């Protein structure tokens, strides 16, 4: 799967957030999206996910020669962003099995507890707890668990280290690296220099805006 941005620009009202972004994201690479707060990192990620349409320019996604559209593309994506929320009235297990179930993936209890321990959560402490009363750190780790379980090829991560301690951030970095090595595609919006350094390529939105 390959995502290509061609001269993409996004505006809110009269104000351009960014313009003339041309880039290609290939499997096996981690691309960092950097820039100061408000420079449009999250927006660019949403555009790449085709959850929003850019004001100008085009986003094309292809696999081999075949263009991927609509459900075919979305099924290959997984997101970790601050805007992603779990259903507050469902437990962690219910949330996870619901979201994965929509993708046609059966989540076994064994697999579930293994995933939780991989992201540093204890299954026993989550049992019977509604997602609405989890701590922000726990929720962030749960998002990572869904990401890992999703088997999606494209990972769009928006500040995935937010609300995590040092070990959590190291976990994210390690998993992203592993995913890229397996041939996955990672887009990573970040302000952290170490995370930026771990990426293969970088799009700096702060700079592109300065060029207007």
């Amino acid at each position, binding site marked *: 799967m390959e995502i290509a941005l061609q001269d993409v620009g996004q505006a*809110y009202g009269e104000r351009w957030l960014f313009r003339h972004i041309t880039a290609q994201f290939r499997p096996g690479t981690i691309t960092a999206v950097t820039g100061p707060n408000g420079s449009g990192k999250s927006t660019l990620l949403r555009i790449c996910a085709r959850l*929003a*349409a850019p*004001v100008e320019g085009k986003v094309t996604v292809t696999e081999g020669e075949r263009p991927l559209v609509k459900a075919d593309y979305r099924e290959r994506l997984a997101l970790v962003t601050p805007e992603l929320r779990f259903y507050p009235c469902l437990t962690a297990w219910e949330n996870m099995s619901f979201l994965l179930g929509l993708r046609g993936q059966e989540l076994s209890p064994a697999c579930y507890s293994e995933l939780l321990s991989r992201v540093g959560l204890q299954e026993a402490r989550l049992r019977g707890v509604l997602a609405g009363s989890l701590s922000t750190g726990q929720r962030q780790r749960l998002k990572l668990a869904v990401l890992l379980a999703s088997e999606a090829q494209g990972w769009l991560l928006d500040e995935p280290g937010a609300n995590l301690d040092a070990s959590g951030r190291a976990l994210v970095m390690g998993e992203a690296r592993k995913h890229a090595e397996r041939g996955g595609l990672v887009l990573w919006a970040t302000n952290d220099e170490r995370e930026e350094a771990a990426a293969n390529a970088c799009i700096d939105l702060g700079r592109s805006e300065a060029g207007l």
Partner: protein
Amino acid sequence: MLLRAAIVLLTIGVLFAVFCLVPPAEGLGYYVRLAFFHIPVAWVAVLAFLMSAYYGVRYLSKQELLLDRLSAASIRLGFIFVLLATLSGALFSKLTWGAYWNWDPRQTTIFVLLLIYGAYLTLRSALSGADRARRARVCAVYALFSFLTVPFLVFIVPRLYFSLHPQPVLNAAGHIDMEPVMLATLLAALLDATCIYLYFLYRGVKELPAGGKRHE
């Protein structure tokens, strides 16, 4: 410019024909003049709805904002025409049958159309905060979804209200024994109204997506 002149000439011609050539119809007298305003305006109200659905389909497949603006401009114009059609229809109804409103099939149809136009415009203004692509998409979907009422309006409403109001009143107006001069005038008036609609539709889109001005 040439187009505008042609439309003005046509309008003058139609007005002349309506007031000087058309004989009073039996049973209706000179009230029949109102029909030459009412029928074309009602026709355009329906046409504008069809056009907006057409541009809605085109928008959803092409995603060009111009198509969305055409669809919306058509609705805005259609809203004006449907208001005029409703008012002139009510007046005509009062003058000929003694009541402003009696829910006969065509009145029902035009009223549903009025509701749809109003709903579309409300939706559009409520979405002014959203980004333009999303607004365009949502509006196109609504235009098409409301278009699903068309078979109902055409096939079922006449039956439904036939049973409640046994006298098929309005049909008589359209099918009075037409003299050639009346038929010609009516056709010219229909053409004129259609041209006025198309003129404002494309002009409004070229300049700004603003509402069309009244023009008679």
